[in-house]
């Protein structure tokens, strides 16, 4: 008798899970990855993509439209790999800083993109005809010895017309456009940031053709390593 009750409960729970599952829309974001036509920043950068950045997923449940599971990690990673390859004179993916002097030997600095926030709106929520998405990126740059050059928050927006039965496609397109918009701003505006300009000037003045700057630090374990970057968030200039 107990077994039957347990079985019935299990079946009920399974049925409920199946119903809930069927109300969740899963979107794996996919889109084009254009190569930017921009001035190259004359620096060889190590680029660190955290696991969270590589596998970024957003999950949200709306009372009216059910649950959403949006996986934008892969598209985001592909986009930034292509973006940084065009933006800098040379790029190399690196592990989580701090890096050793040896690891920094052929690099001028480290570039770290991260996602601060992602959000989206459906027409039923916004009252508009469009699906829209926004991504807030934070990009941080460190010089050869691990001193922070600067960090910037960049928000990318995207919106897409959506049909009644293609909400997943519309969210996909809006998100891909938001990644693209954020990338466009990074590609155009990063080089014009005063902190980047100052760093490039000082690098140009100091750097020797085949080696690091004389007297380069032993490692980048300085008070402003990426581990402590949260402390600097408040004073970061916005891009």
């Amino acid at each position, binding site marked *: 008798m107990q077994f039957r009750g347990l079985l019935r409960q299990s079946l009920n729970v399974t049925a409920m899970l199946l119903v809930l599952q069927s109300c969740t829309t899963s979107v794996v974001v996919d889109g084009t990855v254009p190569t930017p036509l921009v001035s190259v920043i004359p620096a060889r950068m190590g680029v660190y993509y955290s696991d969270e950045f590589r596998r970024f997923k957003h999950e949200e449940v709306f009372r009216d439209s059910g649950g959403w599971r949006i996986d934008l990690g892969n598209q985001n990673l592909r986009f930034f790999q292509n973006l940084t390859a065009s933006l800098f004179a040379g790029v190399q993916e690196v592990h989580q800083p701090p890096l050793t002097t040896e690891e920094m030997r052929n690099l001028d600095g480290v570039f770290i993109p991260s996602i601060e926030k992602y959000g989206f709106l459906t027409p039923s929520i916004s009252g*508009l005809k469009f699906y829209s998405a926004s991504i807030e990126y934070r990009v941080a740059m460190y010089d050869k010895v691990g001193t922070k050059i600067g960090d910037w928050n960049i928000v990318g927006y995207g919106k897409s017309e959506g049909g009644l039965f293609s909400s997943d496609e519309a969210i996909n397109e809006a998100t891909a456009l938001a990644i693209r918009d954020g990338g466009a701003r990074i590609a155009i505006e990063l080089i014009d940031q005063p902190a980047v300009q100052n760093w490039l000037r000082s690098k140009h003045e100091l750097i020797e053709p085949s080696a690091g700057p004389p007297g380069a630090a032993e490692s980048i374990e300085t008070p402003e390593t990426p581990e402590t970057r949260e402390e600097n968030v408040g004073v970061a200039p916005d891009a």
Partner: protein
Amino acid sequence: MRNLFVAVILSSLLSGCVSSRIEQSRDSATGIESHEAIVLLGRASYNDKQTEESFTECIADVLGEGDNPIRLIEQSQFRDDLYPWFEPRTAPTSANELGKLFTEPGVQERIASVNVRYLAWIDGDTVTIDSGGSMSCTISTFGGGCFGMSYWEEDASYEAAIWDLKTMTSTGQISADANGTSYLAGLIIPVPILARPGNAACKGLANQLRAFIVGES
């Protein structure tokens, strides 16, 4: 029964009336060689309006057909090729900005490589400005049906700003406004009588754009 069916089909094919107006202002002479192309770009902004992709596709379809088709470069292809310079928030807002844009590395060469001569910015949208009436539908074991009438009035308002990428100047603007009321009559089955102001604006704008580009008007 067959007569009723034919009547229903014919009724559904009836189109509501649409009134449209096309206006043009020309700043300079135009003309296009057979190897030159045009790009249609829908303006997007981050407010509640955006030029529908279907509208620019409709114009592209009209321009690409007929006796003298104009060579078109697809909007998405052009935006990808010139990324990040023609994104919603980075695109030039006036032809005066083209000179600066062309100094960016690779931009002028990329445009020249696909022989794009004109760029037409399409801006506008179709909105419902009025609606009313009522219709109710019921269904039961003995059958069902709809009774009543509803209507909605739509206004399509679009503008094309044409830039000559060879001279880096604005060559003119064409605007298209169309207005029409659609009806849905419930006579057991719902019978739509649709006005399509968006379609009328598209065809009017596309035909005028063709004449403008080739220099006929």
